[in-house]
């Protein structure tokens, strides 16, 4: 293994481990997550009184915890490239601090976005309970956003690697600023797809996994000029085909 490959692995391995642990928690202990609270709130036949009870039982902190778990599972793999950039551009003695500042700022943005997204999902599911209308509405919004040039603008900005000062307070502020801006563009890019798992009555974790794969796949594509077009799995498909061909040739 080359030193560069070893360096990449040092970043990739712990991040994928964190994501894997979060996924395992979501799969084996879905109760108490934001997802399950929202989904049970909208099961067919949910009476108004039980809705109130659900709202009372799902305290903000448990929703926040559930949302944080979702973010850890779905978003951490997307952070491999920017974290690598922060690490590469920081002195060895500052690396851990710079990465922590970047990641904290990024998750602060996503947690703030979670307030809006969870509220939106709650409203949609509580006021149209037991109907397929929320699924249809959110899918339509996600599809339009997925095709839109605005989504491409956000995706392009997710590839921006900010300049980071090397020393002192400026270095800390740059890492924070990079985390905040990256978080904002990431929310802009992913918000519509992140709503989707909340509108399924069953199979929410599977929906989350599908969304996570799509988010990861579209992030692999290079930035392109914004336009109306489908974006998603094209590069992943090319990688899979190329890898398969290479392995077949070797064997």
């Amino acid at each position, binding site marked *: 293994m080359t030193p560069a490959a070893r360096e990449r692995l040092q970043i990739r391995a712990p991040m994928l481990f964190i994501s894997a642990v979060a996924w395992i928690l979501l799969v084996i202990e879905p109760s108490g997550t934001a997802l399950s609270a929202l989904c049970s709130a909208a099961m067919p036949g949910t009476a108004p009184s039980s809705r109130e009870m659900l709202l009372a039982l799902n305290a903000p902190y448990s929703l926040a915890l559930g949302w944080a778990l979702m973010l850890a599972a779905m978003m951490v793999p997307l952070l491999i490239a920017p974290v690598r950039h922060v690490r590469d*551009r920081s002195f060895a003695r500052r690396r851990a601090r710079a990465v922590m500042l970047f990641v904290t700022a990024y998750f602060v943005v996503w947690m703030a976005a979670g307030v809006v997204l969870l509220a939106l999902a709650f409203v949609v599911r509580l006021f149209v309970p037991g109907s397929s209308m929320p699924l249809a509405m959110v899918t339509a919004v996600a599809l339009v956003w997925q095709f839109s040039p605005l989504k*491409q*603008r956000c995706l*392009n*900005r997710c*590839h*921006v*690697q900010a*300049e*980071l*000062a*090397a020393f002192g307070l400026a270095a800390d502020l740059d890492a924070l600023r990079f985390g905040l801006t990256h978080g904002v563009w990431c929310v802009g890019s992913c918000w519509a797809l992140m709503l989707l798992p909340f509108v399924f009555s069953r199979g929410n974790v599977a929906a989350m996994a599908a969304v996570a794969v799509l988010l990861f796949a579209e992030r692999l594509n*290079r*930035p*392109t*000029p*914004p336009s109306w077009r489908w974006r998603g799995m094209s590069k992943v498909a090319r990688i899979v085909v190329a890898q398969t061909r290479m392995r077949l040739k070797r064997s």
Partner: protein
Amino acid sequence: MSASIAEAVSAAPDRVFLNLENVRGLVDSTAFRVYVGLPDGANPADHPELLAGSIALFGVRKATLVDEEHAGKGLTFVLEITNIVDALHLKNALDVDSLNVRIVPVKPVPEDAQISIGRVSIFRQGR
């Protein structure tokens, strides 16, 4: 014989690189000469031994645009400056806390070129 060659190789100085990171601008047809360790007020033309290299910013305009392939990262140039640093060190003229890097345009740069450099950094690589 092979032992002495090995010693000579292991005694070779570390390699030193000058990075010009996130070079952005709106005019492709610009080029610069990069000098390292040039004394203040010195004429670059009088010190060819301090010339780290020349850079031409072909493609810089496209690399500057956020909605293009480089996502606005600009261009990054890496110049090896081992010989210059080694020579400065042998002359006791190397101040590692303050090493001048002077970037001199080959031809006058138009005002609308808006050339900028995100970060200038120096990396040392052990042999």
